[in-house]
């Protein structure tokens, strides 16, 4: 192979590597198992990706603004447990807004620490991952939370319902993706998120109140987490304290897979949705070819590494370079 052809292929892989890898996976799974592209299976994958997807939408804002949110997994457990507990105490109509308010408070707290106090988001949200877990356990007393009368509540609609034949979780995911996608790409606020993540100093010098933008991103993230918690609680009408554990990394994987840079300033909601679907299909495919579910953890990690590598490679247009 001539040097220039090799270079061109390398450059193409660097730019489109994720899609190439995804296509290869899809072809492989389809050959290995006929059911993979079955409409029922496809719909199933999308539905089970909805919770992850809703969370990834919010984290996309945080990542584009140049920060991280590792607390979304345990925050989702918190929302789920709280809404289930309040369901029996004050009824679903009040429980849902109460749960949203409490989750938004957590988001506001993180946003305050990272935005206004300018603390490192990795440290803050890593700490919150653990702190919120503790908060959830304290709240529940360590017990699983169940709705007492599962037969007679309309609460299951968010997780189990169908509207015109489409599962409600998918509709919620699609609706949120559309709204947040518009918000990010079309509104002044969205523009400011990109500016703050692209060059926070220049954004400040342009009169953008950086702290306020970062704060808002964490609020959006918390809102998405609350929605995810609602779907999760509604789907099973009962939950363990650890239901969201580990999701923070999967969410981050989906966002990076979609092409948002961890350095901030780039990424889109559309790409994140693609990232979520890639992750969902790959995990589903692994199960269909007969691997145990825990293989997913390893594969997810490999995908993250691959995505980060290709992100850097795309920037320099080469798969490998002696200098950064």
């Amino acid at each position: 192979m001539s040097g220039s052809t090799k270079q061109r292929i390398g450059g193409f892989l660097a730019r489109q590597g994720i899609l190439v890898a995804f296509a290869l996976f899809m072809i492989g799974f389809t050959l290995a198992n006929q059911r993979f592209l079955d409409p029922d299976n496809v719909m199933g994958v999308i539905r089970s990706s909805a919770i992850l997807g809703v969370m990834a939408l919010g984290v996309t804002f945080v990542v584009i603004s140049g920060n991280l949110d590792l607390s979304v997994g345990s925050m989702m457990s918190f929302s789920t447990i709280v809404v289930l507990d309040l369901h029996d105490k004050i009824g679903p109509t009040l429980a849902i807004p109460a749960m949203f308010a409490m989750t938004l408070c957590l988001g506001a707290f993180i946003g305050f620490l990272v935005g206004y106090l300018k603390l490192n988001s990795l440290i803050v949200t890593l700490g919150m991952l653990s702190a919120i877990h503790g908060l959830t356990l304290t709240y529940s007393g360590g017990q699983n939370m169940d709705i007492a009368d599962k037969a007679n509540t309309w609460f299951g609609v968010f997780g189990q319902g169908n509207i015109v034949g489409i599962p409600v979780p998918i509709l919620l995911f699609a609706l949120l993706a559309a709204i947040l996608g518009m918000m990010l790409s079309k509104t002044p606020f969205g523009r400011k998120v990109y500016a703050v993540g692209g060059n926070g100093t220049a954004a400040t010098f342009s009169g953008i109140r950086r702290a306020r933008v970062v704060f808002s991103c964490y609020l959006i993230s918390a809102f998405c987490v609350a929605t995810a918690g609602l779907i999760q609680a509604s789907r099973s009408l009962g939950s363990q304290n650890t239901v969201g554990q580990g999701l923070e990394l999967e969410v981050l994987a989906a966002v990076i897979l979609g092409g948002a840079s961890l350095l901030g300033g780039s990424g889109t909601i559309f790409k994140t949705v693609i990232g979520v679907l890639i992750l969902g299909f790959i995990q589903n495919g692994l199960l269909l070819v007969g691997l145990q579910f825990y293989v997913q953890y390893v594969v997810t990690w490999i995908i993250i590494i691959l995505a980060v590598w290709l992100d850097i490679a795309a920037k320099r247009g080469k798969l490998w370079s002696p200098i950064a």
Partner: protein
Amino acid sequence: MTEQIPALRLEGIVKTFPGVRALDGVSFSVLPGEVHALMGENGAGKSTLMKVLGGIYQPDDGRIIVNKMPAVMTSPLEAKAKGIVFIHQELSLAEELSVAENIYLGELPRKRFGLVDWTKLEAQTNEILARLKVGFDAKTRVGDLSIANQQMVEIARALTVDSKAVIFDEPTASLTDAEKVVLFDVIADLQKAGVGIIYISHRMEEIFKITDRISVLRDGQYRGTLKTAETNEEEVTQLMIGRKLDLSRNVRHHELGRVALEVRDLSCGELFRDVSFEVRSGEVVGFYGLVGAGRTEIAETLFGLRDPSAGTILLNGEEVRIHSPADAIAKGISLVPEDRKGQGLVLGMNCRDNMTLPQVDDLKAGPFVAEGSEIAIFDQYRDKLDIRTPGWKQIVGNLSGGNQQKIVIGKWLSMHPNVLIVDEPTRGIDVGSKSEIHNLIRDLAAQGYAVIVISSEMPEVLHVSDRIIAMYSGQITRTFTAEEVTEDNLIQAISGIGGSDRAA
């Protein structure tokens, strides 16, 4: 005999960057025991040349010859090994380490098992320090030293190797007069030891005091070498700027408006004290002073990036308090910052989005950004400022420095500010775009803007300003009108000389 063999010779050095020919066939040589001044305006190619010499850039063409031997410098380490040593303006010392560790960093004397031989290290270091007659010893933590003494550590580092040539880059920028005397003694010692010295400075007085010959660069080209004893400031300046020093003072053809900005007794901690001045609409006021004199800090305070510790700011006669850039912008103060890439632009964003960033909240169609109005604004200022870009979608990071600067200027002009502050308007911008930006600043004044220009380049300040405010060490030393300013009295005012002229 040795006088005839240059310690260091450059032959036809060429270095190009995309769009710029930074060095265009530069040749000159430094004899052993000679102090050779390298002069040129900012952007003339001095620092590029030094980076080629130091192995940071590879020349596209030309040769470097050290003691008759052609030398290829591929890294700073290699340059040092070949006896080329740099004393940088910006110090590169590890503050937490001792003087001795810094001096021998990377080549600490070893004992058995690879352990550091502290006794030997200390003895060697103190020997060198004795030669420099400094008042600190090998064990002192570098972070505890004054800037001047830190510079001595850098020089001590130069003495540890068998140097053929030592390059001093603006060494006196942060030194007091007493410290300068010590520095000049050290240079004289090096000279006696037969080392060739390249001395880069803007300060004519020093150049004529200590150098033997002067080489001049302009626009990346070598313009000639003069014997210091046989030339004068005028001739050197003429070589540097390529014309007689007429300074082409700006002539104002329009009337000044009312006072747009007035500052009374403004102070900000130790950064600047009791600063008072006013700027009228239609007027360009230049701030000139050395780095660290407080010019940029005043701009940052006016723009809400720093809180003043005392004093008042009046805009159109009304007292205002400014707590953030958003505040300043709302009140009509705009800042084109010093660091274009770090502070002025989001490099990964496109031209349009950068230009409309401060007013994106005001350009709305329903809840969304009115992209049509944005494009209209971009087009208007692209034409007005002659920004050369394929279109608004172009990523700003891909533009040339001059066009980037115009985007920043356009960003503020499109908001029609009362006061426009421009900090280092042409830093890192090629010569052609420079004069365009200068003309632009004059035009803005003619249109009635009140403009403050902060610059380290004297020709620039002289060229664009109606009045010039000279600063020294956090204070205004003198205000000149365009008619009364001369290069000499301006230099005196920024060097803290000429106390009799000092304003109250």
